C-alpha cells in the first residue's frame, strides 16, 4: 500500500464532483488540502452529468467520490438516483460516497444513501479524517487548552532607570512602614492558614480566636446560623444536586478555543450571580464558548465586614459570597485549563482572601492598594498594611495578580491611576510576586472631560499601552471589562463595542482582556447565559477577522503616550517627595476628591503598631 510522504496515510484516489455549477468552493478547498497531504485528487468539472461521473469512476476506480450540491425539493431524488447508479455500475463495494453541502448532516446523508455527509457545522478535517479512514479528533481536542502563565517571558525591567529609582524609594518606605504594623485582617489570615494546613483537624480554640477578630454579623452566623440579610445556606438537597451537576458536567467536559492564529490575548469573564449553582452554570457555559479564565465577583458588603462566613452560601443580590466551601465547589467545577481569579483588591479581608484563594487552588488574584483605598471604600492605612501582606501571600502561593485601575471610572486621570498601579507592581516585585498591569479600556469621566475620545476609542487606549510598555516590560491585561462606558442598552451595539475593543487588544498584543456579557453594560438584573455567548462569539470573530492583521492608531496615540509617561513620572515624583505612601493616598496625590477619588472609611483606625 502506498502511503503519503506528508502524513503516512494510505494514498487515496478521490473524485471531487460538484453537482451544481456554482457551489464548488468547498470541494476546491478539499482538493487543495487532500493534495497537500499527498492524495491523488481529481476535481471534475461542475455540473457534469451523473452518468459521466460514473463512467469516469468506473474507468479510474476512485476510493472515494465526494459530491457537493445545494439541496432543494427535487434535488434529493437526483442525488438518490446517483447513488443507485453508482451501485448498479458496480462501484459500491470499493468506493465510498460522501456528500457535502451547507444543509447536509448525517441523517440526511443516510436518507440520501451516502456513506458520510458533512455540512456547515463540519470542519474540513472531519472529511479528511473520513477519507483517510482514521478517527476524527475535533479541533477542541486537537487544540486542547492548557493553562497559560500570563506572566511568562516578562522581565519587569524598566525602560528608564530613573523611574525604577523613584519606585524603589516609594517601596522602601512602604515595606518599612508596613513591617511595623498589623491588623485583624492579617491575624485572621494567619489563623486561616493554620486552619487549612494539611492534616489539621477542626480546632475550637483556633475558631474562637478567629471569631474574636470578626464583626458581630459573622460571629452571629457561626453561633446561631443566622446569616446576614439575603444570605442563606444551601440545603443538603441543593448541595447534593450541585455536586451531581458538577459530576455530570465533568463527564462532558468541553472547552473551545477563541483564538485563531494568535495565542493572545487570553479572554476572561467575571461571574458573581450570588448563587454558586448559577455561578457554575455561567462558568461552564463560558468555558464551552471559549473563555480562558473566569473571576469571582464578591458582594461589596463583604469587603466592609471583618471576617468570612463559612459553608455553601447563596446570596440574593450581585456578588457571590467568599467562603472556603463556595470556592471549593467552584474550583472543583472548573475545566483544568481555566484560569481562575479570586479578587483581593479592596476591603477588610484581603490577606485572608489571598490565603483562601491560594489554599483552594486559584490561579490568580487581584490586588490594588491604590484603587481599593481611593474608590474601593477601604481605609488607605488599613489597605496598605493588609494589601502588602496580601501581596506576600500571593507570592507565597505562586499566584500572579492583576492590579486593576478602576479609579479611572471614578474620574481619576490615567496618569495618577497608573502611578498607583506601578507602585503596587514594584512592591510586588520587591516581595517576590508577579504583577500584571491592568489599565482600563474605558470611556472614563476624565477622558470625556478632556475630549480624548471625541474622535475614536482607539488612540487613547493605545496610548496607555504604549506608555506602560515604555516604562516597564510587564504583562498587560486590560479590563474591566474592556469597552466600559461605551456600551448602550442594545445587544448588538454592546457586542460590537466589546468586540472592537477586543480587536484593539489583539492589535496591541496585550496578554489578556476581560470582557462583559451584552447584559452587563446596563443590566439592572441578572446576566443571562445568552448574553455571555453574545460577546464570546463576537470576540471569536475578532480573532478570525484579524488573524495577524491589526488596527493602527493614529500618530496622536504616540503623543498622548509621551504625555502619559511624563504625567506618571511626575505623580511618582510627588509621592516619593511626600515620603509616605499612605499619606500620599490620603492627600490625593494618586487621586483626589476633585478627581472623584475619596479615601475609604472601612477599617479606619484599625491598624496597630507592632
Amino acid at each position: 500500500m502506498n502511503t503519503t510522504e506528508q502524513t503516512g496515510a494510505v494514498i487515496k484516489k478521490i473524485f471531487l464532483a460538484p453537482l451544481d455549477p456554482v457551489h464548488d468552493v468547498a470541494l476546491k478547498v478539499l482538493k487543495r488540502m487532500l493534495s497537500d497531504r499527498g492524495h491523488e485528487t481529481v476535481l471534475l468539472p461542475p455540473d457534469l452529468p451523473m452518468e459521466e461521473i460514473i463512467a469516469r469512476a468506473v474507468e479510474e476506480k476512485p476510493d472515494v467520490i465526494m459530491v457537493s450540491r445545494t439541496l432543494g425539493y427535487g434535488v434529493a431524488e437526483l442525488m438518490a438516483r446517483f447513488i443507485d447508479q453508482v451501485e448498479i455500475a458496480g462501484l459500491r463495494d470499493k468506493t465510498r460516497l460522501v456528500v457535502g453541502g451547507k444543509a447536509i448532516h448525517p441523517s440526511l446523508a443516510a436518507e440520501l444513501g451516502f456513506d458520510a455527509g458533512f455540512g456547515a457545522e463540519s470542519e474540513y478535517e472531519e472529511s479528511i479524517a473520513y477519507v483517510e479512514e482514521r478517527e476524527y479528533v475535533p479541533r477542541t481536542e486537537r487544540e486542547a487548552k492548557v493553562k497559560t502563565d500570563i506572566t511568562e517571558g516578562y522581565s519587569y525591567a524598566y525602560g528608564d532607570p530613573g523611574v525604577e529609582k523613584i519606585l524603589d524609594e516609594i517601596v522602601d518606605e512602604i515595606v518599612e512602614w508596613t513591617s511595623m504594623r498589623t491588623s485583624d485582617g492579617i491575624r485572621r489570615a494567619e489563623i486561616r492558614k493554620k486552619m487549612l494546613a494539611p492534616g489539621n483537624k477542626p480546632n475550637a480554640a483556633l475558631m474562637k480566636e478567629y471569631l474574636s477578630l470578626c464583626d458581630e454579623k459573622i460571629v452571629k452566623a457561626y453561633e446561631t446560623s443566622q446569616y446576614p440579610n439575603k444570605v442563606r445556606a444551601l440545603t443538603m438537597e441543593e448541595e447534593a444536586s450541585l455536586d451531581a451537576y458538577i459530576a455530570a458536567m465533568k463527564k462532558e467536559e468541553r472547552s473551545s478555543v477563541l483564538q485563531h492564529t494568535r495565542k493572545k490575548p487570553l479572554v476572561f469573564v467575571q461571574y458573581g450571580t450570588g448563587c454558586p449553582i448559577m455561578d457554575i452554570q455561567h462558568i461552564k457555559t463560558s468555558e464551552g464558548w471559549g473563555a480562558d479564565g473566569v473571576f469571582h465577583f464578591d458582594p461589596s458588603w463583604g469587603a466592609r465586614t471583618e471576617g468570612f462566613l463559612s459553608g455553601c452560601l447563596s446570596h440574593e443580590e450581585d456578588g457571590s459570597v467568599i467562603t472556603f466551601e463556595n470556592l471549593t465547589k467552584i474550583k472543583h467545577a472548573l475545566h483544568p485549563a481555566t484560569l481562575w481569579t479570586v479578587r483581593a483588591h479592596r476591603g477588610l479581608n484581603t490577606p485572608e482572601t489571598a490565603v483562601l484563594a491560594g489554599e483552594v487552588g486559584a490561579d490568580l488574584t487581584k490586588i490594588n492598594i491604590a484603587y481599593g483605598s481611593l474608590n474601593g471604600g477601604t481605609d488607605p492605612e488599613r489597605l496598605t498594611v493588609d494589601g502588602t501582606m496580601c501581596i506576600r501571600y500571593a507570592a507565597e502561593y505562586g499566584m500572579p495578580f492583576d492590579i486593576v485601575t478602576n479609579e479611572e471610572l471614578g474620574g481619576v486621570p490615567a496618569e495618577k491611576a497608573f502611578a498607583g498601579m506601578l507602585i503596587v507592581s514594584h512592591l510586588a516585585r520587591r516581595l517576590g510576586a508577579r504583577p500584571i498591569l491592568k489599565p482600563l479600556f474605558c470611556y472614563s469621566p476624565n477622558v470625556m472631560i478632556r475630549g480624548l475620545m471625541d474622535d475614536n476609542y482607539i488612540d487613547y487606549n493605545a496610548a496607555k499601552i504604549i506608555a506602560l510598555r515604555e516604562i516597564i516590560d510587564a504583562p498587560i491585561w486590560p479590563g474591566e471589562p474592556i469597552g466600559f462606558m461605551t456600551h448602550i442598552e442594545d445587544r448588538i451595539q454592546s457586542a460590537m463595542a466589546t468586540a472592537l475593543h477586543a480587536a484593539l487588544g489583539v492589535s496591541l498584543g496585550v496578554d489578556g482582556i476581560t470582557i462583559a456579557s451584552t447584559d452587563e453594560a446596563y443590566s439592572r438584573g441578572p446576566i443571562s447565559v445568552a448574553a455571555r455567548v453574545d460577546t464570546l462569539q463576537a470576540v471569536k470573530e475578532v480573532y478570525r477577522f484579524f488573524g495577524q492583521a491589526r488596527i493602527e492608531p493614529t500618530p496622536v496615540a504616540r503623543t498622548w503616550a509621551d504625555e502619559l509617561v511624563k504625567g506618571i513620572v511626575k505623580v511618582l515624583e510627588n509621592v516619593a517627595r511626600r515620603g509616605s505612601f499612605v499619606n500620599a493616598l490620603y492627600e490625593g496625590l494618586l487621586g483626589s476628591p476633585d478627581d472623584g477619588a475619596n479615601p475609604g472609611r472601612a477599617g479606619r483606625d484599625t491598624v496597630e503598631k507592632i
Partner: protein
Amino acid sequence: MTASIGIIGTAKNTGKTTTASSLLAHYAGSGIRVGLTSIGYDGEDVDNITGLPKPRIIGESGNIVATARVCYESSEAELRTLKETDIETSLGNVIIGEVVRAGRIVLAGPNRGIDVRHVLQYMDDMHARLSFVDGALNRIVPLMETDGIIVATGASRSTSVDYIAGEVSAILEILALPRAGDDFLGADVPDDRDIVLFSEKKGYAGLGFSSLIRDEQVERIIDHLDPAVQWIRIPGLCSLDAFKKLAVHCTSIVWGKRIILRNPSQLLLSADTKAMLDLISLLQKLGILLQVERKIPVLAVTVNPFYPVFQSGADTTYKAGLIDGEELLKKVRSSVHIPVMDIEKEGPGMCIKVINERFGI
C-alpha cells in the same frame, strides 16, 4: 424463511413509511414475527428538507429492527441487542435488535444492496417471518434484494394525475420484464462483472466493462455483434442514450436475440422512465427479448395525494398540499393490473391480502 418486502417510491413523500408503519401495525399482535429496516432515514419528527411532520414508526413488542447506532441508542422503544453488525452508515454501524417494549423508533439501515441482503439474512436467522424494508426517496437498487415490491407514488412526484399513472404503469412494465430462461441461468458466465456476449460459434466474449454509458462502449458491443450472437448480458448501468444507440444498431442488423440484465432496476435509473419503456417496446417489436436474471414481483401500488408546497416568506418554507385523491386512485387503478390503494384512507387491508396470499401467511 423470511419473506421480504421492499417499499420503493417514485419520489420523496410518496407514502413509503406510512405504508410500512401501517403494515407493521397490522401484524402487531398477530403472532407473526416481523422484521423492519430502512435504506434511508425514517421515523423522524420532521422532514429533513421540507420541515413538515413525518409519519412515525412504532416498533411493536417482538419486532426485529435493524437501525444505525445513533438511532438505536436514541430509540424510545426498549430494545434488546441481538447483533452489532459491521455494516457502516453515516449514523454508525447497523445494530439488529428486538423490541422488548413498544415505542417509537427511527430507522436508518443498510444503504447498499449487499448489506440489505445481509440484514435480511440476520432477520431470517432471528426467525422473522416477514421483513419490511422501507425505501428512501426514489431509490430502487438495494430493494432488488427483496422478495416482493410495493410501489408508492403520488402527488409529490407530480401533481398531474396522468403523469403519475403513466409513470407507474411504465415502472411496473419494466419491473415485469420476464426472467431469463434456465438455459441462460444455468450457463457458466465468466466474469459476471463485465458485459458478456455469447454465441455458440465463438463462445463467451467479455468486453472488459460493465456498464453501457458512453458511445465508445456501444461501439465495442456493435463490433462484436453479429447474427450468431445469442445474448448480451449487461450487469451494470444502462443509460437511456447508450441504450438508444444500441437499439438503433440492433434495428439495422435485425439481430433479434436477447439482452439480459441482472435485474430491472438497471433500466429504471434514467431520467425518463417512459422513454425507456418506449425503447424496450421498440426492441421487443424487433424480436429482441429483454430479460432479467432476477425478477421481483410487484405486489401493490399505494398512492398519496399529499405534496409539499413551497412558500416563501412564511415561518416554514413548505406547507402541505393535496390533489384530488379519488381521481388519483381511479386513474392509477385504470393504468395498472395490480391492487392500488390509498393506505391512509383505506387502510392496508388490500395489501395484507396480497402479501398473505403471496407468501402463504
